C-alpha cells in the first residue's frame, strides 16, 4: 500500500493514540512503586489494547478470504492493519514495561518485533516496488503466465532464426498452433485454429531460407549457444544476454557479421531478449513484493496463538 497523503487520517489517529498511551505510561512508570508491570491494572489495560490491535491486524487475512462480504472496504482494513499493527508494538512494550519477562513473554516480544519489523519492511517494499515494476517491466504479464509467455518467446525466436537459417533441428515442445505474438498482452483465451475449407483456401507460407549456410553460421552459433539457453533458463548465472548493456553490445557485434537484410530480424531477436529480461525482472520484483509474507504471516499466526496462551495463563494465574 502506498504511503501517501491519503494515510494522513490514520497517521494522526495513530499518533494521538500513541500520545495518549505515553501520557498514561510515563506517570504510571514514574510513580509506580514496583515499576511498570504487565500484571498491574494499567499494564493489563495496555496488554488488552495491544492484543486487540494484534487481533484486528490478523483479521485482515480472514477478511481477504471473504472478499464479497460487505464488512468494510478492504482498503480500510488494510490501513487499520498497518497502523494498528504498528501501534501494537509500543503499546505492548508499555504493557511489559519494556521488560521481556520469562521465556514465553520473551518469545512473544521477539515475535512481535519480527512481525512488526517484517510488516514495516513489506510496507516499504509495497510502497516502492509497484512503481519500479511499472517502469522497469512495461511488458509485464500475469505472474502465473510468465512461464507460458517464456515458452512463446522461445517458440517465436526459433521461428525467426529458422526463417533465416533453415531448420535448427530442435525438438519443439511448444504448441505449433499457438502462434501468438509474445508481448505484454497475453491472450487468455485459446485461439481456435482455422480448420476446414477456410484453412484449405489459405496457401501455406513458402519455406524461405534467406541466408546461406556460411552467412548464417554466426547467427546459428549465437542463437544455439547463447540466446536459446538464455531464453530457456534466464536465471542461470553468467549469461551475457541477462544484462541489457552487454546484450546490446552482443547484438551490435552480431550485426557486423550478418548481411544488412538480416538486421531487422536481429532487432526482433533483441526485442525477444528484452522481453525475457523484463519477465525475469518482473518475477524477481514479484518475489520481493510478496516473499516477505512467508515470514510475516506464519509468525503473525504464531504470535496470535502464543499471545492467546499468554493472556489465558496470565489471567488464570495472576491472582
Amino acid at each position, binding site marked *: *500500500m*502506498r504511503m501517501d497523503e*491519503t494515510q494522513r487520517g490514520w497517521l494522526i489517529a495513530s499518533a494521538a493514540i500513541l500520545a495518549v498511551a505515553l501520557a498514561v505510561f510515563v506517570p504510571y512508570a514514574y510513580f509506580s512503586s514496583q515499576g511498570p508491570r504487565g500484571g498491574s491494572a494499567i499494564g493489563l489495560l495496555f496488554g488488552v489494547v495491544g492484543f486487540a490491535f494484534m487481533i484486528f491486524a490478523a483479521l*485482515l487475512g480472514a477478511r*481477504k*478470504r*471473504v*472478499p*464479497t*462480504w*460487505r464488512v468494510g*472496504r*478492504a*482498503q480500510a*482494513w*488494510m490501513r487499520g492493519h498497518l497502523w494498528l499493527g504498528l501501534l501494537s508494538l509500543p503499546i505492548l512494550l508499555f504493557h511489559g514495561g519494556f521488560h521481556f519477562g520469562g521465556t514465553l513473554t520473551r518469545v512473544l516480544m521477539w515475535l512481535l518485533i519480527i512481525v512488526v519489523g517484517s510488516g514495516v519492511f513489506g510496507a516499504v517494499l*509495497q510502497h516502492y*516496488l*509497484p*512503481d519500479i*515494476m*511499472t517502469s522497469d517491466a*512495461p511488458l509485464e*504479464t*500475469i*505472474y502465473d*503466465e510468465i512461464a507460458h509467455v517464456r515458452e512463446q518467446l522461445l517458440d517465436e525466436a526459433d521461428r525467426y532464426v529458422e526463417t533465416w537459417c533453415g531448420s535448427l533441428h530442435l525438438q519443439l515442445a511448444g504448441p505449433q498452433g499457438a502462434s501468438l505474438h509474445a508481448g*505484454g*498482452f*497475453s*491472450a*487468455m*483465451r485459446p485461439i481456435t485454429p482455422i480448420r476446414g*475449407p477456410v484453412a484449405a483456401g489459405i496457401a501455406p507460407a513458402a519455406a524461405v531460407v534467406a541466408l546461406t549456410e556460411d552467412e548464417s553460421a554466426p547467427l546459428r552459433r549465437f542463437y544455439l549457444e547463447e540466446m536459446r539457453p538464455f531464453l530457456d533458463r534466464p536465471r542461470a548465472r553468467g549469461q551475457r544476454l541477462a544484462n541489457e548493456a552487454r546484450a546490446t553490445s552482443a547484438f551490435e557485434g552480431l550485426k557486423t557479421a550478418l548481411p544488412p537484410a538480416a538486421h531487422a530480424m536481429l532487432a526482433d531477436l533483441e526485442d525477444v531478449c528484452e522481453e525475457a529480461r523484463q519477465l525475469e525482472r518482473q518475477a524477481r520484483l*514479484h518475489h520481493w*513484493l*510478496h516473499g516477505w509474507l512467508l515470514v510475516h504471516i506464519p509468525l503473525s499466526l504464531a504470535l496470535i496463538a502464543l499471545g492467546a496462551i499468554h493472556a489465558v495463563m496470565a489471567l488464570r494465574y495472576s491472582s
Partner: protein
Amino acid sequence: MIDLTIDGNPVRVPAGTSVFDAARMKGIAIPTLCHLQNETPVGVCRLCVVDTGARVFSASCVRPVEPGMNVVTNSEKVQSARRTLLELLLADHPSPCARQQQSGDCELEALGRAAGIKEPRFSKRTLARGKDDSSLAIAVDHDACILCDRCIRGCNEIRNNFVLGRMGKGYAAGVAFDLNAPMGDSTCISCGECMVSCPTGALTNKGIVGTVIAAGDDAQLIEAEELLHLPVFKGISGTFLELNRGAIVKRRVRHGEIICREGEFGSTAFYLLEGKARVSISSPIAHVKTEGGARGFFKRLTSTLAVRDSDAREEETRDRTIPIDASVDLAYENPVAELGPGDLFGEMTCLNFYPRSATVRAETDVLAYEMLRNVLDILMKNKTFRAQLDQNYRRRALENHLRGVPMFADLTPDFIEHLKESVELVRYAPGQLIARQGEPAESFYLVRIGFVKISENYPGGELVLAYLSRGDYFGEIGLLGGGVRTATCTALDHVELVRISNEDFRQMIEQFPAVRQGLEKVAAERRAQNQQRLQMVESVPIDQFLSQGLMEAQSLLILDLERCTRCDACVNACADAHDGVTRLIRDGLRFEQYLVATSCRQCRDPLCMVGCPVGSIRRRNSLEVIIEDWCIGCGLCARNCPYGNINLHPFEVVAEDPDRPGRKRAIVKQKATSCDLCTHLKEPSCVYACPHDAAHRVDPRTFFAPLLGGK
C-alpha cells in the same frame, strides 16, 4: 417471298426476314453478341456485319432482306472489321471474366479466341465501372458488360419486369436496376432471365460455392420442374431453380429427431410442409449468480446456476418473450412453441449466418424444405410466399412484439387488432438506409428481424448511438419532436421491420395518454444520452486515448499500477462474487500508469450485441451491458467484443436430454459471462476488495480529463 444470294448461295425467304435469319436458314453462321433469337434485334454490337454491296457494312440482325441482294458474310474485309470490333470489345472487358472462370463459355472471349486474338491492340479501360454484390442470387460486374442490352430485353420483353435499363453516357454508360439502385435493393425478383441472357460475365449466377446441400436417405434433391408445381414456388424462374440445383432439398425427419440445434452454426433455413415441430431453448433459464462468498467448502467447489426466482432482476417483473429465429417468440417462463405447415425457421441463420437460436425437434414425422440463402432470397421476393409468411407473422408474433414495447402494454386488444391489420412489414438489405438524419419523420418502427444501427453525424465523423435488434423500436423521437429524424438508421444485415404509420402513431398517442407519456420519457432519455455522447466526442483530443477505444467506454476498470501490488485480490473477489468464475483478467492495455483491465467497458458502441440470435445480450436503461439468462452459449458476442471482455464459461447443469426427450441428464452448458458491475451491490466487488486503493471503476471521460487536458 424474296430471293437473294448469301455467300453465292441462292436463298428464298419471306419478306421482312433479317439477313442474319436468312443466312441461318441456309446454315450459314454469322457471329453475334447482342442478338438472341427470342429478343428484338437491336444491332448494337455490330459483330454480325455483312457486306451487302452498300457503302458501309450492315448489321445483319437488323438489316431486312431485299430482292436480288448479294450478301457476303465472310470476306477478308468483313472478317477484318469483325476482328477490330472484337479487339475493341475485349479491350473493354476483364479477361477472363467471371463466366469464363466459372464455366469457360464467355461468348466474347470464345469469339476472340476463334478470331485468334490473344491481346487486343487497344489500351485497356482505366476507369472501373464497379461491381454490385448486393443480390444474393446474381453477381453483377459492370466492367464485364459490353452494353449489348440482352439483359434489358430479357427483363422487359420476356419477363415484363421492367427493372433493367440503361444509365450514363459515353464511357460511363452501363445497365442499371430501377433508378440505379443496387440490385439487391431494387425491385428485381431474381428471376434470372438477365443472367441467362448475358453473353459475358457481367451477370452471373451466384451459387454458393461448395455448399450444395448434401442429399442422403433423409434429404432428397428436388428438380426444378417439381418445384415449379408447388404453390410456394409459383412464379419463380425455372432457369434460376435449374441453376441452383442442390441448393434446396426435401428433408424427411422422423418423430423425435432434431432438425436443428441451438447454438450451432448453419447456413440453411427450413420451410415446413407437413407435420409439427417443437421449438425450444434447452439452456436452463437461470442466472449466473452475481453474489456469493464463503458459503461452505462444497459450495465453492461446484459451479451452479441460480434459478430465476432466487435471483430475479429488478426489471423482470412482467412477462417477457425470448426472440428466436422463427415466426413465433418463446415465453420466458416456458420457452417452448410449436411450428406447423407453412412456417419458416432459420431465416437469420440462412441469410446472416448467425448461430441457430433454438432447438427444433420433430413432434410428428416432418417433411420440410431445407434451403440455402440464394433460394430463400428468391422465395422471399415471391409475392405469394411473402404474403403467406407475413400473414403467419401477423397472426402469431406481431402482438407479442407490439406488447414487448413496455409502453404498448396498455393498448387495448381492439387497438392491437387494428395495428395488426394496418402495420406494414418492410424489408431492408444489408447497408441499406432506413431513415436519414434531418429527413421528415413519417413512421415508427419495430425491429422484427436483424440489427439496425442508429448513428448521428457530428463534425468529423459518425457516432454510433445504438444497435437495435428484434423487439427494439425507433422513430419515436422524430414523431414526437419536430417531425424530423434526429439520427440515421441503417440496416446492418437483412432487416425486417414493422412500420407503424404516422397516422396510426398519432391515433395511438391521442387515444392512450399513458403510451404518449412513456414514449416521451424514453425519447427524452435517449436525447439526453445522445447529447452527452456527442459532447464527449467533441472534447477528447488524444490519439492514444482514441486508439485504445477508451473513448468508447462508459465505465473502465482501471488498476493504478503504481499502487497495485499484483496481489490479485480483485480477481479473487470477482470470482467469489460470480460463482467462482472471474469476469476480469488483470491484464490489458496500459494508458499512462493505469492498466485497463480485461473487463467489460460498457461500450457506447456495443459491437457485442450485434448478431445475438436470441437477443440475450442487451443494454439496460442505465447503459450497462448485461447478458440475459437465456443465453445459448453460441459465443458470437465473445467473438464480436473487440477487447476480449466476454468469455464463455462451462456450467454443469441438469437439463433435458436432447437425444431422449422427457428425460434429464447432467450436461455442460456454455454461457457467456461479462462484468455486470455488480449492479446489485453498491460497489463492484473487485474495487471493494482491493486493499491497496488501486482498482477503480471510472468514467474515462472524467477520470482522464486532467491527463487529456480536455474540457
